[in-house]
């Protein structure tokens, strides 16, 4: 059985992994990039719409273009990419990764690992929506892959549950491909996706958006033929006598992504509710051997953020592999109206990038980072919605004496 030796092994060659590999390589580390599919690029390959790269490449790109640019940089750096490798195990005692492919079982001896396996879509079954066992329910990513990559059509008339960005993008894509999209249904009283996508994907195509509504039943024998939609109250319970019945053969789901961390269960600390990897501001998990970045940590709005976080984790994984001592870690706590935050710990003597989402929409509020009662950073008089991720950067000078950080929106 073949074995490889490297400094940094990056698992998953999507946006986070490609960026991590590049950054680790820039630090002078030997890098091996491992990918389960035939090509690098991950989910970017099926995102043929534009809107990628405005921050990271300072130009607007499609998903495949964004992936291609990163892949070219990987090639220029001569970073070895092992494709079609399935991860069997990460062993932090032996400092070894085991993978399998058509070439057999292989072992990778490495000084650190960057785990960048992205996210997967929440399946229909997890929503507990009453349903017949009919075919015709697709998660948005599956529909996107069928249509954009495989040239396969999935139905004639559709309804979309969830107004997350991929749901909105698919509303437009399906319409352009001749599918009648009858409505987008959102359980919350506000949209789940970016404002620009509401405008460009729904309003421009006259697709109605039903806020505070949800799907309460899916009907049909072999293939679905009806989807029942109801208004919901403040507790998200269906309001009686508000049923609308849509005659469709297709239901598309855009109901959230779950960090893909199944290979890390029992190995590193995961967020109990999101299942994302808990990391510090260096991208390091509770197991010092394992770093993580991208959607397997928290689900980001923009691929640009994923690349930036990938670079951060990749660079620090390379420094760790080179023997750099770890600095003290300071806890970052979720304060008022913070739903999701990353990182969970601040490592002293570094700048701090904070990514956060509010729990509930709020207008004219302040975003505050404080150390006990001392305000370290604040932005005043802004509106926040859960669908728009907050990203701020704090210089390390401001953080030199902090003991415990709290992030809040008040």
């Amino acid at each position, binding site marked *: 059985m073949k074995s490889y030796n490297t400094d940094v092994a990056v698992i998953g060659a999507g946006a986070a992994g490609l960026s991590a590999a590049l950054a680790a390589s820039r630090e002078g580390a030997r890098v091996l990039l491992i990918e389960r599919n035939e090509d690098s690029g991950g989910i970017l390959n099926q995102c043929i719409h534009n809107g990628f790269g405005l921050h990271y490449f300072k130009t607007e790109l499609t998903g495949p273009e964004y992936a291609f640019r990163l892949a070219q940089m990987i090639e220029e750096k001569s970073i070895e990419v092992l494709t079609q490798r399935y991860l069997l195990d990460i062993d932090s005692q032996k400092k070894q990764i085991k993978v399998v492919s058509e070439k057999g079982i292989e072992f990778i001896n490495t000084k650190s690992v960057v785990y960048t396996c992205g996210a997967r879509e929440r399946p229909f079954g997890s929503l507990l929506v009453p349903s017949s066992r009919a075919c015709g329910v697709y998660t948005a990513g*599956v529909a996107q892959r069928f249509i954009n990559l495989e040239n396969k059509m999935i139905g004639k008339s559709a309804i979309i549950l969830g107004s997350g960005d991929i749901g909105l993008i698919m509303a437009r894509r399906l319409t352009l491909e001749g599918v009648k999209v009858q409505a987008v249904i959102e359980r919350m009283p506000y949209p789940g996706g970016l404002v620009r996508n509401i405008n460009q994907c729904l309003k421009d195509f006259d697709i109605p958006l039903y806020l505070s509504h949800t799907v309460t039943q899916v009907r049909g024998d072999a293939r679905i033929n009806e989807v029942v939609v109801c208004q919901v109250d403040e507790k998200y319970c269906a309001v009686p006598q508000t049923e609308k019945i849509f005659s469709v053969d297709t239901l598309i789901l855009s109901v959230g992504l779950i960090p893909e961390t199944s290979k890390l269960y029992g190995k590193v600390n995961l967020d109990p509710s999101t299942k994302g990897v808990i990391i510090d501001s260096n991208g390091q998990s509770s197991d010092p051997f394992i770093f993580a970045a991208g959607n397997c940590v928290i689900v980001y709005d923009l691929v640009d953020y994923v690349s930036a976080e990938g670079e951060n984790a990749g660079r620090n994984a390379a420094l760790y592999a080179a023997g750099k001592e770890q600095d003290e870690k300071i806890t970052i706590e979720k304060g008022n109206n913070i739903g999701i935050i990353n990182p969970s710990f601040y490592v002293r003597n570094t700048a701090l990038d904070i990514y956060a989402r509010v729990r509930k929409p709020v207008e004219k509020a302040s975003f505050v980072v404080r150390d006990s009662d001392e305000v370290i950073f604040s932005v005043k008089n802004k509106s926040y919605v859960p669908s728009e991720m907050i990203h701020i950067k704090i210089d390390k000078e401001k953080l030199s004496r902090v003991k415990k950080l709290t992030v809040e929106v008040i």
Partner: protein
Amino acid sequence: MNIIIIGAGVVGSLIARELCRYNVSVTLIEKNIDVGQEVTKANSAIIHAGYDDEPSSVRAKFCVKGNAMYTNLSQELDFEVKRIGSLVAAFNEEEVNTITELYNRGINNNVPNLKLISPEQALEIEPNLNPSVKAALYAPTAGITEPWTVAIAAVENAVANGLNLVLEEKVTGIETQDKKVKKVITDKGSYTADIVINAAGLYADDIAAMVCSDYRPLHPRRGEYILLSKVTSSDLVKTIVFPAPGKMGKGVLVLPTIDGGILLGPTSQDLDQRYKEDKSTTQDGIDFIIEKTRQLIPNIDIRNAIKTFAGLRPESPQKDFWIEESQEIDGFINASAMRSPGLTAAPAVAMYISQQISQKYSLKPNLLFNPQRKRIVNYINELGDEEYDALIKQDPLAGKIICSCNKVSEREIIQAIKRGARSIDGVKFRTRAMFGDCQGSFCTFKIMQILSRELGIDYKDIRYNKPDSRPIVGNTRD
């Protein structure tokens, strides 16, 4: 002698295999594209110990015997049975009385090693059990299996021993002559018959009505379920945890699946005869399951659900199996009304029917009968590194992983197709691909590619199970 069996659920499949032990021509007719896709597919998958059934019932006669037969059967047919034991928990005086009755009934039915245990013992077995438990009935012989795998394995083995398997043909009539069965007519052809065995599940009453008037009407009893992820929930319970039974059956349970997930359910709702296809889940059903199972295991986290489904059980007014030859028509044998514990009883029922036929017609044994069948091995879970690596060197597709969640390689999928999978569900139920946490979102298309290539069929003709359950309707562009 020609024997025709109608219905390739677990009952019909096991009968078919038993009859292949004799020198007769056996034909198994199934309306679906695959075996085990109806009642067999969606139930609690339990090998019951046998304390529930009144000693006078036909159920009692076959349940304990069937339970014991699963050990040898699972070895011969190489499918998994885990004897994880069952626990019936009582939470008040009345329920303690009920489980004491069950205990006595179980002793009467010859259930081995049955025990009434204290709350402390119950909590030691199941630390997540509601601590207000007053007593429990523990039955170590209870177990779990994969019902569809039992049907698939039995049919594979029967075909190897000469069974004529006919799929996608629906029986439309049965001809009789001089009060004897003569011919089975399907929508595509006809089959000469000396004996017809009716194992048509929910439709066994319709089949029986084709030949005789002495049949029992069947209605569906719907059971809804919620499946929790094995990644996040596998340590919730180790045994099959029942509440004390009530009027509507054994109650809502919490139990592990063979694959390591946790199953919650079933509800128990009698539906009108017209709803024999209604496998819908309902809001009431889902709410009821959550409420009831939390009384048993308070720390169930329903956010770990990955799937809901419903199954239909064939129930008769007698609430008992109906296993006998028609009094009116010679050669027409019913294996009908196989409600719970039908899965457990199935091997014993199959043996009983085949022995009855053998005695009545003095059948000669099939000397070439080979009872062994081998399953498709899951390489990642079951092979050591050296062995697996050597296999990949022989066939690289053994190392090409298609289903990431359940670690299924392309070679396993091709084997499933070679063994008879002709649909997405055919692959799913033979390999567990698409059964994991992502529910097929990453691998369904790859599996369709393999099905298309191996079977030489177009994507738009690939289906889950039913004829119109096709996920792709055509090309986006020509």
